[in-house]
C-alpha cells in the first residue's frame, strides 16, 4: 500500500465496505425504484415479465462470460454463437438432417435442444483448444470464432430468415415454441431455465474444486499450475460452458420469434461483458460472482427497458448505459482498494 491517510477511523471502513460490496444490489433497487415511480405501467405484471425475459437472455450469456472473465480471458464469440445456434435450431426443425440414401432424420424438441447445445459447446471447445493448445490470446481466438460462427450462420440460409418455426407434431417438435413462450407454475420457462443454470453455476463457483480452480487460474496462472491445478482443462471448461449458455439463448430466441435470422445476437457479447463487470467481475481475472452477474444483467435490462418506456431517445440510452458501466468499474476499484486496506489493518492489529 502506498501512503494512506493516518486518521481513518477504524470502524468507518467496514461499514463503507459493506455498502460498496452490496453496490450491485443497491443499483438494482435504485433503477427499479426509479422506473417504478417515473414510468407508467412499469410495475404491471405484463411488463415485469417482458423485462425479466429480456434480462434472462443477457443473464445467460453473462453467466458464461463471468467464468471466462474470472479465468482472465474473454469470450467475444457468444453473440455469433447465439446466431449460429438459432439458425441450427431453425434448420433442424425445417429440414432435419439429410442422411442421403437413408432418407432424412427428423428430431423432437428435446433432441433439437440437445443438438443445438452441442453446437454451442463445440464452438466453446474450439475457442478453448485455440487458447490452451495453440496459445492464441483469448481476445483474438474468440474474435476469430466470432466471425466464423457468424459466417456459418449466414451461409446456412444464404442470409435469409428461417420462417415459421412452429414445429411439426409428426416429428414431436410441435412443442418447440414452448421454450420461449411457455410458462410453468406461472413463470416463463426461460426464467426457470435461468434459475437452474444460475444455481448450477453458482454452485460450481462456490462449492466445487472446479470453481475454486477457475478463481485460482485467474488469480495466478503459474501459481495455480504449480499447485496442481489443470489449467488447460479449467480453461477448456469455461469456454465450453460459455458456448453452452450461448446455445440456450439461441434456442430461446428462435423459439420466441418462431423464426431464425442469421444476424441474431449481434453485439450481445458486449451486453454480457457489461453485465458481468457491473456485477463486480474483474477483467484482470480472479474476482467475480454469479449472483452479482445476474443482478448486473437485470440492472442493464431494466435500465434499457425503463428508458424505452419513458421514451428516452435510444441515443441517450446508449450514453446512459455507458456511463453506468464506467461508474461501476470506478466503484469496483475503490472497493478493492478499501478491502485491501481493511485486511491490512486487521493484520496490522495483530501486531505484525
Amino acid at each position, binding site marked *: 500500500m502506498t*501512503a494512506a491517510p493516518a486518521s*481513518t477511523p*477504524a470502524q468507518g471502513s467496514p461499514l463503507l465496505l459493506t455498502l460498496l460490496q452490496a453496490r450491485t444490489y443497491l443499483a438494482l433497487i435504485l433503477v427499479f425504484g426509479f422506473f417504478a415511480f417515473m414510468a407508467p405501467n412499469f410495475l404491471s405484471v405484463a411488463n415485469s415479465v417482458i423485462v425479466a425475459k429480456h434480462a434472462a437472455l443477457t443473464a445467460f450469456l453473462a453467466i458464461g462470460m463471468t467464468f471466462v472473465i474470472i479465468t482472465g480471458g474473454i469470450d467475444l464469440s457468444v453473440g455469433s454463437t447465439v446466431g449460429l445456434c438459432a439458425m441450427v435450431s431453425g434448420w433442424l426443425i425445417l429440414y432435419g438432417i439429410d442422411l442421403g440414401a437413408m432418407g432424412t432424420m427428423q428430431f423432437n424438441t428435446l433432441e433439437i435442444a440437445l443438438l443445438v447445445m452441442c453446437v454451442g459447446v463445440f464452438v466453446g471447445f474450439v475457442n478453448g483448444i485455440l487458447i490452451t493448445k495453440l496459445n492464441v490470446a483469448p481476445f483474438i481466438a474468440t474474435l476469430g470464432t466470432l466471425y466464423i460462427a457468424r459466417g456459418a450462420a449466414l451461409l446456412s440460409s444464404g442470409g435469409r430468415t428461417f420462417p415459421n418455426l412452429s414445429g411439426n407434431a409428426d416429428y414431436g417438435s410441435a412443442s418447440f415454441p414452448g421454450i420461449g413462450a411457455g410458462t410453468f407454475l406461472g413463470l416463463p420457462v426461460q426464467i426457470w431455465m435461468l434459475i437452474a443454470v444460475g444455481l448450477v453455476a453458482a454452485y460450481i463457483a462456490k462449492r466445487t*474444486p472446479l470453481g475454486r480452480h477457475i478463481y485460482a487460474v485467474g488469480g495466478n496462472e503459474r501459481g495455480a499450475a*504449480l499447485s496442481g*491445478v*489443470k489449467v488447460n482443462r479449467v480453461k477448456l471448461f469455461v469456454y465450453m460452458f460459455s458456448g453452452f449458455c450461448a446455445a440456450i439463448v439461441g434456442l430461446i430466441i428462435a423459439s420466441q420469434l418462431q423464426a431464425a435470422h442469421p444476424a441474431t445476437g449481434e453485439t450481445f457479447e458486449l451486453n454480457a461483458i457489461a453485465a458481468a463487470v457491473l456485477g463486480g467481475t474483474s477483467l484482470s481475472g480472479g474476482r467475480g460472482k454469479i449472483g452479482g452477474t445476474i443482478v448486473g444483467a437485470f440492472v442493464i435490462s431494466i435500465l434499457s427497458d425503463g428508458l424505452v418506456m419513458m421514451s428516452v431517445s435510444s441515443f441517450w440510452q446508449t450514453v446512459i448505459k455507458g456511463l453506468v458501466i464506467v461508474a461501476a468499474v470506478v466503484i469496483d476499484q475503490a472497493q478493492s482498494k478499501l478491502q485491501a486496506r481493511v485486511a491490512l489493518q*486487521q493484520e496490522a492489529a495483530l501486531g505484525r
Partner: protein
Amino acid sequence: MTEKHPIGLSIRGGVKVYPGTRALKGVDFDLRMGAVNVLVGENGAGKSTLMKLIAGVEDMTEGTITMDGREMRFRTKADAVAAGIGIVFQELNLFPNLSVAENIFIGHETTRGGIDIDIEAHREATRQLMERLEQNIHPDTPLGNLRIGQQQIVEIAKALAQNARILILDEPTSALSAAEVEVLFRVIDELTAQGVGIVYISHRLEELIRVGDYITVLRDGVITGARSMEGVDIPWIVKAMIGSSSKEYGRSEVANFGPEIFRAEDITLPRAGGGFTVDHVSLSIRSGEIVGLYGLMGAGRSEFLECVMAQHPHSGGKFWVEGKPLTERDVPGRIARGIALIPEDRKRDGLIQIMSIRENLTLSSLPSFTKLFHLDLKKEAKTAVEFIKRLTIKVASPENPVSSLSGGNQQKVVIGKALMTGPKVLLMDEPSRGIDIGAKAEVFRTMRRLAAEGLGILFVTSDLDEVLALSDRIIVMAQGRVTGEFPSGTEAAKVISATTPNAQNSKDIAA
C-alpha cells in the same frame, strides 16, 4: 571517524503512522557519507518504512529530515531523486518485457530534442555500467530472460545510472550467488571511496559485519542500537534485534533415517543454446533426511527441482518414489505421488495473491475435501485453521487475502499448502528467502520436525551457514552437474570449493 564520514542526512524524531499501526516511533537516524550504513532488524521492525521515508516513497507523519543543514521534505520519489537519493527495493521494480538498457533508463531516458530516444547512448552507458559491475549482460537482452540475481544487478545499475549520492540497498543480496555478492561488495567499496553514502539492509548478519561501517538496529519501530561497526559481532546484533541470544537451527534429536524415499537418475534438461542446464544429475534421499542442495546462482538447482515437479516437458531421466517409478507426467499426478514443491518466488509461483489464506492453503488438496464433486467447505475451513495453528501462522482471519500477510507468514502459507497434500518428499527452493530471522528459525524448526516425522526433504539454498547447520547431507551443484557430496559437519571450505570446480581443477573434471 566523524571527519572522515560526514553526516549527509539525518532524521530527528521520525514517526510514521499507518492506519492501525505506528511503524516508526520517534527515530533518530544519521546517514554517513562515504560509508556503508547498515540497517538491521526483524521483518516489520520498520527498516523498510524508514528507507521509504528517505526515498520519498512515503511521507513522514512527524519529524524532520535534514540534508547539509537544510530541512528537506520528500513528498514524492522524484523529490528524493532530485536530492541525489536512489533506492533499490527488495522486490524488483523492473519490466521483464523491456531490454536491460531500456530498464536502466526508464523514466530518465536520454533523448534528442526531448522526443527521440538515443538508443545508442543507452546501450553504451549500459555496457559501461555492466563492465563496472563485472556482468556479462548484453544491453539488448530482454530482462525477463535473466535470472533473478542478474535482474538485481540491473536494478543496482539503474540506481547508479542516476548518479545517486545516497544509495539505499534493501536486501540486495537476498537472491545473489556468492560470486555476485563479491562483485556487489567491490562496487560498494568503489562507491564509498567516491563519497557515496550507502544504506545497506540485510538479514544476513555475517555479511553486514563484513561490509558495514556503521550499524543501526531497529526493533518494533524503535532504534535499539546504533554505533560504529568496530567490535560488533553477531550475538550483539541478534541481541539488539530480538532481545535474546542467538537461536540454534541445529539438530536436537538423534538422526533416524529410514529407507530411500526418493531417487533421481540421470536427469537432464537441455539448454536452449546447446549443452545442459541440468546435466545428468542423480541423487537419492532417505526418509527422515534433510539434504541441502548448495551451489551458486545458475548452477541448475532450481531447474532440477522444477524437473522433479514436471515443469520441463523436455527433461530426461527417471524418478522413483518409495522404490516405484514416477511415471506421472503432470503436476497433479506428481503431487498425488507425494511430491511437494515450495517454489523460490513466493509471489509468482507460490501464492494466489488475491485469494484468501484459507483458499491458498487448501488449493493443492481440494480432492480430500471433495465427495464426487461437492466441496465440503466446513471441513476445508477446519483443516485450514488446523494448519494455521500447527505452523503458527499469524493471521487475523483465514478469510483475509494472503497478500495482507508479512513475508514470513506468507512463506508458512506456502509450506502449509505443500504439507496439506500429505507429501513424502518435500522440495524447498530457498525456503528462507526474504523472511526475517525469527520466521527463519521457525521455518527451520518446522523442517526438522517434518523430517523427524519421516519426510525426505531436499532444500536449495545459497546461504552457506544455512546449508551447513541444517543439512544431514550436502550436495553441491555447479554448471548443471553434481560436483560434490558431503556428510554433515563438513568444513565450509570444502563445500565452497565444490561450487567452482573449473577454477581449481578443471583438468580433473575434463579427464
